[in-house]
């Protein structure tokens, strides 16, 4: 579904992705973790072309990203992206946030999109917030709307860029619960997060990155119980202490 | 034909230079006086008691709410009736200084208010007097917010000085007005006058932009 083959990326002199090779199967859930600045956000932002790669092949849903022949706008409709800062449209209500892209990009009839939007908002536990503006919602509620907004496009893949990092601690679980539900329905997901409980529960694989390279990759059990490198041990001891 | 007119205009360059000199002098004097007065009013407005603050606020509003042309007419035609004899240059200085002071006052107030409250509380807690708090803690931090619009205000001041030509002061604009009576080519004459102003104002505009960029880069903030 997602395949990196020898992908490299530089920000000026900074080598931010080093020879990445990684393959994600349909219905697989992959958690990406690592210290800040390790390139994990950049990695998933490349998948829908928010960042350009400079070297190597990146194939998503059988289409090459960055290839002029690939219609990126079309490909992006198949990929949901959940941001750390939510990025809800502040001038639209929760329901309008969910229906905006389906009606304008997918050209779904308004009534149909709204019906689907209501169902999705109910599914993420916000049945009473259809007409609330983002500024009237808590961080956790906003992030759940953002997830519903992605689901509204019926994507084949969902990418999460540190979805709980901007949240107060008491709101983290309500967002994780929604993500778990999405995972259990068989969505292909790549999630950048430090929430190890989430990784243990739904991830088939944990990828550990450091300084732009994939250092270690394995099942959650392997990774948590027997990390193979010093760097991953040091990282785990830091986050598990909390 | 244009060439002859240009030569004719070039011959009158002493007058043009005098006009430019007048514009620069008028602007410079009012700029210095206006800045001093503006900072004084700004600090008073931000820290003074409610009555003083409201009085300054009202005056600033009256000046901001009326065209500079009307203000200069009021000064030039009414002060003599009150027994103050003044020429166009003095009237220009008074008008521009007052105008600059009012706008700069508002800029300074905004700058002072942009300093986080915790800074003032910290200064209070360490026992600094009002004057010390202003000079050591508040104003240095406020300057970052104040500087870009301050330079922008200087550009406005130089441009507004052209209005003083309406009461007969021989500044750059007036020189153009006189020249166009003799050489009937308004495009040429006022293009040259415009270049004169451009040479003075554009460097300041660039400076203001640089200050603004540096400031927003230093803060790294997203304006909403």
């Amino acid at each position, binding site marked *: 579904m997602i395949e990196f083959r020898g992908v490299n990326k530089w920000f000026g002199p900074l080598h931010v992705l080093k020879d990445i090779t990684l393959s994600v199967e349909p219905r697989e859930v992959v958690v990406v973790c690592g210290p800040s600045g390790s390139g994990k956000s950049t990695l998933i932002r490349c998948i829908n072309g928010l960042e350009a790669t400079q070297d190597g092949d990146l194939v998503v849903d059988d289409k090459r990203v960055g290839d002029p022949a690939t219609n990126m706008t079309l*490909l*992006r409709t198949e990929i949901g*992206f959940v941001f750390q*800062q939510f990025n809800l449209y502040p001038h639209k209500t929760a329901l309008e946030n969910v229906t905006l892209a389906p009606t304008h990009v997918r050209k779904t009839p308004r009534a149909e999109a709204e019906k689907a939007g209501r169902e999705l908002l109910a599914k993420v536990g916000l049945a009473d917030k259809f007409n609330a503006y*983002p500024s009237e919602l808590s961080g956790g509620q906003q992030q759940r709307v953002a997830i519903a907004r992605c689901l509204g496009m019926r994507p084949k893949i969902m990418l999460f860029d540190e979805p709980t990092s901007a949240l107060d601690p008491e709101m983290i679980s309500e967002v994780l619960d929604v993500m778990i539900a999405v995972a259990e329905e068989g969505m292909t997901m790549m999630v950048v997060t430090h929430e190890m409980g989430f990784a243990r529960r739904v991830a088939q694989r944990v990828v550990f990155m450091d300084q732009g390279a994939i250092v270690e990759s394995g099942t959650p059990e392997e990774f948590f119980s027997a990390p193979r490198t010093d760097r991953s041990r040091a990282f785990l001891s830091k986050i598990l202490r909390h | 034909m244009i060439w002859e007119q240009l030569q004719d205009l070039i011959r009158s360059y002493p007058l043009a230079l005098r006009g430019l000199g007048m514009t620069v002098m008028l602007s410079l004097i009012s700029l210095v006086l206006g800045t001093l007065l503006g900072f004084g009013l700004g600090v008073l407005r931000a820290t003074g008691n409610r009555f003083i603050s409201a009085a300054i606020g009202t005056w600033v509003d009256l000046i901001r709410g009326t065209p500079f042309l*009307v203000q200069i007419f009021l000064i030039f035609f009414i002060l003599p009736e009150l027994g103050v004899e003044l020429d166009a240059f003095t009237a220009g200085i008074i008008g521009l200084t007052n105008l600059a002071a009012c706008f700069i006052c508002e800029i300074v107030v905004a700058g002072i208010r942009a300093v986080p409250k915790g800074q003032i509380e910290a200064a209070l807690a360490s026992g600094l007097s009002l004057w010390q708090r202003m000079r050591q803690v508040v104003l240095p931090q406020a300057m970052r917010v104040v500087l870009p619009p301050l330079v922008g205000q200087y550009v406005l001041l130089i441009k507004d000085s052209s209005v003083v030509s309406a009461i007969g002061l021989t500044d750059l604009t007036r020189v153009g007005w006189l020249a*166009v009576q003799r050489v009937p080519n308004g495009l040429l004459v006022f*293009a040259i006058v415009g270049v004169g102003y451009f040479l003075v104002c554009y460097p300041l505009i660039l400076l203001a932009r640089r200050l603004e960029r540096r400031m927003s880069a230093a803060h790294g903030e997203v304006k*909403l």
Partner: protein
Amino acid sequence: MLENFSFRTIVEYLPLFGQGLVATVWLSLVSFVGALAVGIVLCAMNLQRGRLLQAPAKIYIDAIRATPLLVQLYFLYFGLPRLGIILPEFVVGILALALNSGAYLAEIIRAGILSISRGQVEAGVASGMTYVQRMRLVILPQAFRVTIPPLLGQAIVLVKDSALLSLISVAELTRAGQLLASDRFMPAEGFITTAACYLVLYYGLKGLAGLSEWWLGLRPMGSRA
């Protein structure tokens, strides 16, 4: 002489001031609409990547900002006849005001568009919107609200700037004051009344600006954590 301040004369001239006020309002209004058109075009040119459109817009904006409106007004007033274009004074005045304010509005609109955070653009991109869809559905509606207060601020500046039209004998508020001053040798009565009329417009627009900010405050936009 101020002790002889004559309210009677002011009352006598009130109809003239009324006409002046009306003239100032509609001159400003027409100029503002023109300025908006100029500003939108300039801003659209300025936001293009290609230099071919961007450079002329930038040069125009800088040239306008670095020279006085009065010089621009004289440039058109004394210059247009030279090109064989004879226009009534008030049209020349509207043209000068619109061309001048347009440059400032272009910058205001641009700042509004650029103030929308990158995350909003990315959210649009990620859901597969085209450039036009992002502009229309995400960026412009938000930029519009941010832009209303500075737009009204520029409207205030424009109303005051229109006073300069009196110098090319357009009959408006300041001209009314000048007439009273020169006909009756009563500059105090003339210009104080003029100033008072401008203040009415100023406080009106200022109130509107406050109202718009209050309205925008009702539905605050901050969705940042």
